[in-house]
């Protein structure tokens, strides 16, 4: 069920329609396409769609749907040429139609497949052909239902970027429902967020992603939207941390992701709040100790030592030791004194040079160390 919806979309825009499964994305698109009955008006360039016959409407809007097509052994050329149907009055297609079909195929990069059978193509190629068919229709609005969902990572980006390019070059509105939030953030001119059949927002991506909206809509206690990176991150279970990571300058990011993946609760610090590690840690760690004094040497007090008294393992990420991060070395030494085992990703010589009481490890050996932790916590 779709409740009251009012949208105003501009020419030349790539508009992403986001929302969880069951939010009503497909239903909304089908209403706009006239495939489902809905009350209200849809205007394209001032023309009221509800008053138009199918064939007249087909000159204004085209669709790429999620329906699988099995067109016997129609060729790619024949499929794309179907897009010319609403424009053809005569029995045969003329030279203009042929050129438009070829150009549409070229735009999507399937011009060499024109004489191939559609059934023999890969999923990505099939999707390109169906889009080319919609382009050949020369619509003012192009509507796509999850155009990239079943494609591999490369083809997904390729098709979505192509759609944005099509929107700009042909000065048409492209409206696509999608699940790729991260890509939508990067390529859309506008984003519509749909939840429970209502439009929650329709705005610039920056506006959409500046607050907690995405987290609220895609309610998931295991993941979180990271505003700074523009990525969906796996959240650490908010439990008593088992591991404490001492990191900085980005050396912590792979470790945080690793621990989050293994569902091992961890804390981290000290971190400068402008450190890239902090940007991730703040959203995924159980607890992050930080200083709000940009570029100045880090400081720590007894609070962190008290907090980590029962930690099972201290992990030194191998952060570069500078005037700013040197206090973290002292922190490592202090923590070792508490009797907590320390493992370091540094080389043996560096561990000796820094006078660290730590066991050398590598990111691949972390598996063994952390698996022991998990057994112990059982």
């Amino acid at each position, binding site marked *: 069920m779709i409740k009251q919806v009012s949208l105003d979309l501009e020419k030349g825009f790539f508009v992403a329609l986001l929302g969880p499964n069951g939010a009503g994305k497909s239903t909304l698109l*089908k209403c706009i*396409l*006239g*495939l489902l009955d809905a009350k209200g008006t849809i205007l394209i360039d001032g023309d009221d769609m509800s008053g138009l*016959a*199918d*064939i*007249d*409407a*087909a*000159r204004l*809007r*085209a*669709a790429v*749907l999620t*329906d*699988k*097509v*099995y*067109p*016997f*052994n*129609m*060729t790619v050329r*024949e*499929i794309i040429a*179907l*897009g010319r*149907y*609403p424009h*053809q009055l005569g*029995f045969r297609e003329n030279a203009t139609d042929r050129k438009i079909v070829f150009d549409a195929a070229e735009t999507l990069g399937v011009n060499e497949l024109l*004489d191939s*059978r*559609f*059934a*023999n193509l890969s999923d990505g190629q099939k999707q390109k052909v169906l889009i080319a068919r919609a382009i050949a*229709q020369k619509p003012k609005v192009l509507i796509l239902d999850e155009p990239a969902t079943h494609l591999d990572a490369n083809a997904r980006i390729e098709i979505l970027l192509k759609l944005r390019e099509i929107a700009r070059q042909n000065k048409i509105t492209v409206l696509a429902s999608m699940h790729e939030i991260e890509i939508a953030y990067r390529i859309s001119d506008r984003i519509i967020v749909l939840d429970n059949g209502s439009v929650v927002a329709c705005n610039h991506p920056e506006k959409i992603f500046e607050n907690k909206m995405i987290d609220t809509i895609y309610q998931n206690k295991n993941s979180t939207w990271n505003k700074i990176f523009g990525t969906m991150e796996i959240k650490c279970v908010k439990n008593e941390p088992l591991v404490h990571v001492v990191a900085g300058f980005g050396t912590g990011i792979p470790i945080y992701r690793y621990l989050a993946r293994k569902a091992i609760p961890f804390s981290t610090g000290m971190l400068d709040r402008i450190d890239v590690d902090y940007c991730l840690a703040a959203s995924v760690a159980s607890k992050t100790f930080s200083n709000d004094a940009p570029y100045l040497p880090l400081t720590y007090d007894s609070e962190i030592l008290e907090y980590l008294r029962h930690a099972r393992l201290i992990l030194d990420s191998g952060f570069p030791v500078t005037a700013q991060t040197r206090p973290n070395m002292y922190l490592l030494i202090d923590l070792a004194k508490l009797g907590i085992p320390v493992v370091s990703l540094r080389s043996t010589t560096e561990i000796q040079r820094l006078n660290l009481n730590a066991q050398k490890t590598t990111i691949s050996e972390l598996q063994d160390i952390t698996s022991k932790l998990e057994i112990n916590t059982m």
Partner: protein
Amino acid sequence: MLSEKRHNKLAFITLFLIPLFLILGIVLGSVSFSANDIVQCVFESCDDTTADILWKIRLPRTVGSLIGGVGIAVSGLLMQSLFRTPLADPGILGITSGASLGVALLVMGGVSAGIGIALIGIEVLFVAALVGSFLTILLLLGLIRFVANTTTLLLVGLMISWIIGSAIAVLGILAQQQNLQLFYVWTLGSFAPTTIHSIYFMSFMIIPTIAASVIYYKRLDASLLGEDYAKSIGVNIKSLQKFSIILSSILVAAVTAVAGPVGFIGIAGPYMARLTSQSGSHKIIIPLTIVYGSLLTVVADISARLILRPVDLPITIITALIGGPIVIFMLVKKRGEGLSQ
């Protein structure tokens, strides 16, 4: 374009084959004539028996099978587009059975009250067959909403055939001996009883119907993408469906009224058209289906006369031998033929 040249070549070869088989259809049969006899009969004069066999029996029969083949093949093609599976065929889906039930009700169900099939005009038979086939397609189309894939559709068609078959059997038990025999002979299927009148009748029904489907070729192409896609490019699929139902039931009924149920040409004709053309557009497939449908049927008819000469076999025996393996092959090798599931 390469494919266009190929299609022209194909059209040329196949069109050349039609007159060849027409001649063969006149020459070959249970009674053999020498080339000399025939040339004499065409250009000079010959005895009445020879003339009668050639012009009153073999010519109508051959022309009838050429035209009837076209009708059945194109009706198969329309059903394949309607149900979106290349395995649809009036025989397989039980539509021919529906037509037979119409005829059975007419001949044995007391409608004709003992007149007998031989005395019922072709037009009356046609109306009975048309009602039967039309209602069966409607039933199938209603059921297809609950049918998930091609295989289930075929099974549903098979069940409809069985159900109609038992209805016909009941009629047969209750019918008078003479009517039952006439009906039985009719169900075997043969173009042997074709007369000049029935050729006119079939042409009158089939030619405009096929012309209409050729005019609709783009819409038929669009329907292959599915209902929603078709609507999105401006094709009203609901009216196209009605159009296909009416046209294909007219085609089935016209041929069935003349020759009885002829199986498998509806699947074999379009199959060969797709196989040889490497195209899926009705612009190319309809003309090729016409050619292959008529060729296959005339070959089947000639074979029916020759295989156990002088016994004249029912044509369905031959068409099943051609079409049956094609259906099995398509079911086994689903890939690429556009079968969903």
